[in-house]
């Protein structure tokens, strides 16, 4: 049955207090009532042109909708009819369109960010209700949420904000390490604009490499992994860099306690081409120079990072993005001096020492987004990622005499790292609101350098020890469909195939992924998921804090890939459009985990790493509760995690199961942000976590006589259980206040932070010390050292 529609010029009812729906003119066409048409386009931020991912787009009348993808693109196919489209995104004013749909349409939407208190109050926007999403075990944070959180030294750190979420445990006090659902640090796939970052830490693990000024969005997935993600067992942390304002030049500069930074973004060609540059550098070495340097030489530490992004739209269908990140840390000590030789006072001996540690990442991606059709979106990219750690130690000593000069030279160069090149193709196909299909694949060429040490001395030829470079190739293919089966039931079904070719070994893996959602009653959904994950690379670490000495190594014929099976189930509840409540339980079995064997240390570099590791299994389970409020003057979340994480290795701990080092039974956090005035934002977070596990000897006893004779060491220690002890509970209150003021050329902001406001002595590590008791007897004591008492800080920021 056909009918004809004349020129449609719908008049729009006002929606909200200050918004009018826009007029859409639709040409006269013939349309079928059974015919379907597709609306597609991009959703961007008004004023900057920044893509908005995860925007909820739905037709109020039919109740059908979709979500914008990673690049802000959306596609919604509906039957020809009058429709009322709403675009909503948290923190942004809502937009809507009323139209009669009788042809395919391209609608690009600019959503306006809520800037002031008044705007926040009137915003009718809301996030996608939790109960409507099939995806579970996932959290999305915007740059605004991240930047509003209190921070150590006023240096906002994305990874430390993620530590405040349920299911995520921090490492040692003050560090940026992440341990998600009982997994190890290497089981987090940390992506910066889609590029893996292998060492995400500056400052020996105390600060992440992600400059918050350059970030637009962060998504954490800790379970129910869609098939498009793979390569790690425990989490995906997808960090998206800002694309650069394509409307006007903007920027900011911040002078902070830990680092100072700047960001500049703007159009190269308005509306078409934009750039973003952001840089950051610590000032430790410059501030500390008068104290650390001497006439003999200098000692210091510094880090920097630089983010650059270029974004060009060729047309509404084609866009190219290029981004690069480079960051480096350097700790150094060098000295030169002479010492008088009594036999030759006129010819003093000369000594030179030069030692340094350098490490850092370089990542880069060039990406082409192409809208093949209204329903099919493609993304093709070339990716480069490199992490290198180098240590250098040179010693020169010259003893000079009238006859000759004796020179002693020692040189040690050690290097480790990983370099990746990869090509990726991804497609989004949205044939109808009932299906969101994604497929794609990639090839990754890995090049591992798992620890090479070069020695040179006056008396010895150059020697190179350790494992040589190991190339490996990884292949991934995936297919997933997010399907709406009924108004109550939806699912995400996917399958991923991975293969890893290294030396003479080829590993293959099929990884099914299933996520389901069932609407129990309006507002409440039951969700469940299963994910099999495989990880072909391993991180060898003694410290667990993200030290640059940690080694990335591949799976080999001796070391099999890690794999996990994770099951999760839970409830998602949206209460009065104000609160989102989620309660989840999970169980994760991990196989082929590797650990250094007993007594192994990265300091022992001669042995091949494969000879120093043991393979075993892990098990993690627990429950997580999160209550989040995303609107109004006061926003924030409350999170609680009850969890267990164990490991079992045949020859470690005599084969008995033992707690994972960062197994923490309870983890409670409360994070709140309150906008006191237009220009005053207060925030605070309180964290309470069980202490981390550690291994301590409890008793001593005598060993063999021969050991004493040779080493003066004969007393053995009884280490009854691996990780059998717990440090004290950690809790801490962090506060922050920012005061903004409009100035002639922009806005200045003072950010005052107090880390550990009540100066809780949270333990950092254990030190053994002999101390005298009250009764005067010397006793060995285990002292919990704390390095982060109350630390106030202030930062100055200028936005223009």
């Amino acid at each position: 049955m056909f009918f004809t529609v004349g020129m449609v010029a719908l008049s729009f009812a006002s929606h909200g207090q200050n918004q009018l729906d826009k007029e859409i003119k639709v040409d006269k066409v013939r349309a079928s009532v059974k015919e379907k048409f597709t609306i597609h386009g991009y959703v961007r931020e008004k004023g900057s042109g920044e893509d908005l991912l995860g925007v909820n787009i739905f037709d109020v009348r039919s109740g059908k909708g979709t979500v914008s993808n990673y690049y802000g693109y959306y596609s919604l196919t509906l039957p020809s009819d009058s429709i009322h489209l709403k675009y909503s995104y948290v923190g942004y004013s809502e937009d809507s369109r009323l139209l009669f749909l009788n042809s395919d349409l391209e609608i690009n939407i600019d959503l306006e960010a809520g800037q002031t208190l008044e705007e926040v109050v009137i915003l009718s926007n809301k996030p996608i209700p939790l109960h409507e999403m099939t995806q579970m075990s996932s959290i999305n944070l915007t740059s605004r949420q991240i930047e509003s959180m209190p921070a150590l030294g006023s240096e906002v750190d994305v990874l430390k904000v993620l530590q405040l979420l349920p299911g995520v445990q921090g490492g040692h006090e003050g560090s940026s390490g992440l341990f998600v659902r009982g997994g190890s640090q290497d089981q987090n796939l940390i992506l910066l604009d889609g590029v893996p970052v292998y060492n995400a830490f500056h400052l020996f693990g105390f600060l992440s490499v992600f400059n918050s000024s350059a970030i637009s969005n962060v998504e954490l997935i800790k379970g129910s992994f869609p098939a498009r993600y793979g390569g790690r067992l425990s989490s995906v942390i997808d960090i998206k860099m800002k694309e650069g304002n394509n409307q006007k030049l903007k920027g900011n500069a911040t002078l902070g306690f830990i680092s100072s930074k700047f960001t500049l973004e703007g159009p190269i060609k308005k509306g078409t081409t934009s750039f973003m540059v952001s840089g950051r550098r610590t000032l430790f070495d410059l501030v500390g120079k008068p104290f650390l340097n001497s006439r003999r030489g200098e000692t210091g530490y510094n880090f920097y990072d630089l983010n650059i992004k270029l974004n060009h739209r060729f047309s509404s269908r084609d866009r190219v993005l290029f981004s690069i990140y480079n960051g480096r840390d350097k700790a150094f000590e060098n000295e030169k001096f002479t010492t008088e030789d009594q036999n030759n006072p006129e010819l003093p001996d000369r000594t030179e020492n030069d030692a340094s540690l350098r490490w850092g990442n370089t990542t880069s991606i060039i990406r082409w987004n192409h809208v093949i059709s209204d329903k099919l979106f493609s993304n093709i990219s070339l990716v480069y990622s490199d992490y290198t750690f180098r240590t250098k130690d040179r010693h020169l000593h010259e003893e000079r005499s009238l006859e000759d000069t004796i020179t002693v030279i020692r040189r040690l160069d050690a290097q480790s790292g990983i370099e990746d090149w990869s090509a990726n193709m991804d497609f989004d196909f949205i044939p109808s609101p009932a299906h969101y299909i994604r497929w794609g694949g990639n090839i990754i060429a890995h090049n591992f350098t798992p620890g090479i040490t070069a020695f040179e001395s006056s008396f010895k030829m150059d020697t190179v020890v350790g494992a040589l470079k190991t190339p490996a190739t990884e292949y991934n293919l995936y297919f997933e469909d997010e399907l709406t089966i009924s108004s109550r039931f939806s699912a995400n079904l996917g399958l991923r195939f991975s293969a890893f070719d290294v030396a003479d070994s080829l590993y293959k893996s099929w990884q099914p992924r299933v996520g389901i959602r069932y609407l129990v009653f309006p507002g409440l959904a039951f969700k469940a998921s299963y994910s099999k994950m495989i990880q072909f690379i391993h991180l060898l670490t003694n410290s667990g804090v993200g030290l640059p000495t940690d080694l990335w190594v591949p799976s080999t014929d001796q070391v099999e890939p890690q794999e996990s099976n994770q099951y999760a189930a839970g409830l998602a509840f949206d209460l009065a459009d104000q609160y989102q409540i989620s309660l989840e339980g999970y169980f994760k079995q991990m196989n082929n985990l590797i650990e250094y064997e007993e007594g192994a240390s990265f300091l022992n570099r001669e042995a091949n790493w494969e000879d120093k590791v043991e393979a075993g299994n892990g098990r993690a389970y627990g429950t997580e509760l999160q209550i989040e409020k995303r609107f109004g003057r006061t926003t924030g979340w409350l999170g609680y995690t009850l969890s267990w994480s164990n490991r079992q290795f045949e020859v470690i701990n005599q084969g008995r199961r033992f707690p994972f080092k960062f197994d923490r039974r309870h983890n409670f956090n409360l994070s709140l942000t309150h906008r006191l005035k237009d220009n005053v934002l207060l925030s605070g977070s309180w964290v309470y976590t069980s202490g981390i596990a550690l291994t301590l000897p409890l008793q001593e006893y005598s060993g063999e006589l021969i050991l004493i004779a040779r080493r003066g060491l004969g007393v053995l220690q009884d280490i009854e259980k691996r990780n059998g002890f717990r440090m004290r509970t950690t809790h801490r209150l962090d506060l922050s206040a920012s005061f903004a003021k409009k100035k002639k050329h922009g806005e200045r902001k003072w950010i005052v932070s107090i880390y550990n406001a009540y100066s809780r002595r949270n333990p950092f590590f254990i030190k053994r010390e002999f101390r005298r008791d009250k009764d005067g007897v010397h006793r060995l004591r285990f002292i919990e050292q704390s390095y982060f008492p109350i630390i106030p800080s202030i930062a100055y920021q200028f936005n223009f």
Partner: protein
Amino acid sequence: MIRFSTFYKGFTLLALISACEQSADLAIPAQSPKLNVYSSFGAGDNHDWIFVISQSKSIVDTTSISQFGIPNAEISVFENDVLLPSPQLVDIQEYFLNGFDIGGQFPATGMYLSNIKPQAGSQYRLILSSEGIGTIEAESRIPDKVEILTVELDTVMVEDVNQIAVTGANARLRFKDPGNQPNFYHLFVEISPDETSLNVNNIFGPQLRVNNPELNLDTNEDDILSEYQTLPGGIFFRDAIFDGQEYEISFSIAAQLLVRFLRGNAGEEFSTLNVRFALRNLTEENYWYHVTTRLQLSVRNDPFAEPVQVRSNLEDGFGLFAGFNQDEVIVILE
């Protein structure tokens, strides 16, 4: 300029103070002492069967370990379920140390000597008790002897602790590993000017360093960064890569006297030099006890090393009660 400098220093000082160190005690629960025995026994007449018995102490107790020997332990030893005569307490200084100062790191008492010579193929069981501490048990056996086929001695250029190339002694020892079973070995060398002074209880054997990298020792003796420092008491290795085959192990011997003899310039000091090469076939528990003790001690000062648990075949106690079988070759240099 002065003002700027003052501000500069003041700011840095403030930063340092605000990040100052704080500390708190970690409570260690009280521990009940456990019995500790060391008895590694071999077949044949060349070895005395000794038992060193002591008790453990809390890690926080700073009393010298020499105070924890047990002179009144009740020791019952069974050979194939037949009770043997009890070992007798002996004076540790007289018997073992010969005046050597052990710096309070070894029990001053608690050494017992058995007059029984263990036999290959026999099964042995120990029941040890001490009033107020408890009772522990262990079982072990004497494995078969593995014969040394050949021994060769030579000189090679090696690097000393100052990375200076010097002449060193090198030895190659060949033996046939019994097949279809895991075997555990302990190789050590003793050097003496005359054969009679080769003492089975001599604890001053030279340090050895393995030259077979494929052996992949369970101890950390191949650590290139720890200078030329091998662990005492010889080399412990397994037959994982040569099960059932003839194998030649090559190793350096840190003994200048031996080097001088090999180079023919020993001078007037000694006319002969006796070098004993001993290869012990260990029971598995014997091997792992010795390996893990060495491993624990070798990494004690490395803050990044993974902790090492010493393996023991004594349930609810510490130490070792395990057998070995030794073959040896004495090379006389003139």
